[in-house]
């Protein structure tokens, strides 16, 4: 079981540092856009409070972090939790292939993670700022999950399968979620201007790219330094 310990220890360290790096990059360009969008959202909520006042009253009741350091702290905590989770999956997948073997190889695993968990789902469901009309949450989560799973298995087959037929099947898996299509709202609308949505998409695309490359590189670095047996 020394490999399990190696994956967990590497994932904890890689997740911690990559999560902190992501938090820093987010504070520079993602969060300012998010906060701007919230101003539009709150403004729209005030205007609509007569129509659905009850919903907003309910929202106000549950705890939420105060803007400023508290909010940043919880975002950092969420980022690190996600990062450790992603790192564990990356460690699990690479262990099946006999380990990562260095930070350069780790960058490639990180790039795959970026494609699986950010690029592929974002093609159908672009990153959203608060106050955007979207389709039913459960339907979107299901499509997201299916896309991530298909992309992961598809990439695996494309790179590691031995027969051409299986590689072809991998390509089919990569494409199929997008031919099915993501659930869309009846009417696309957002309370914030379109430019803000576009700025947010660019900002998250950059932040997540930095994050995934760091996570993969660090996983490669930490797991190759570990003397655990590789079979």
């Amino acid at each position, binding site marked *: 079981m020394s490999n399990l310990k190696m*994956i967990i220890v590497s994932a904890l360290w890689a997740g911690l540092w990559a999560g902190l790096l992501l938090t820093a990059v987010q504070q520079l360009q993602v969060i300012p856009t998010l906060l701007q969008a919230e101003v539009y959202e709150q403004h729209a909520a005030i205007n609509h409070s007569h129509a659905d006042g009850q919903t907003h009253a309910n929202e106000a009741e549950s705890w939420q972090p105060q803007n400023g350091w508290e909010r940043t702290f919880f975002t950092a905590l969420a980022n690190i939790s996600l990062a450790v989770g992603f790192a564990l999956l990356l460690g699990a997948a690479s262990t099946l292939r006999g380990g990562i073997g260095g930070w350069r190889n780790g960058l490639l695993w990180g790039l795959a993670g970026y494609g699986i968990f*950010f690029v592929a789902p974002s093609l159908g469901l672009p990153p959203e700022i608060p106050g955007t009309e979207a389709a039913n949450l459960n339907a979107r989560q299901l499509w997201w999950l299916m896309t991530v799973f298909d992309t992961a298995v598809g990439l695996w087959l494309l790179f590691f399968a031995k027969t051409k037929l299986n590689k072809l099947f991998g390509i089919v898996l990569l494409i199929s979620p997008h031919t099915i299509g993501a659930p869309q709202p009846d009417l696309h609308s957002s309370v914030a201007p379109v430019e803000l949505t576009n700025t947010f998409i660019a900002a998250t695309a950059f932040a997540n790219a930095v994050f995934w490359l760091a996570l993969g590189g660090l996983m490669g670095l930490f797991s190759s330094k570990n003397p655990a047996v590789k079979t």
Partner: protein
Amino acid sequence: MSSAPLLINNVAVLSRSDALKNRILPSLLAAALGLALIYGAGFAETSQLHNATHDGRHSASFPCH
């Protein structure tokens, strides 16, 4: 050495169970742990958890609201 074929056989069995012990089992356990963390931080609908992780979810492009 009549036990030679048996020995080779054992090695084959051993390497298969080694793969299970060194690769497959640790991978499954690590993946399960990872999925639990991602579910908690990215998908759980408890409103406090949602509010705490809100910005992280939006930034990671998870379906949030």
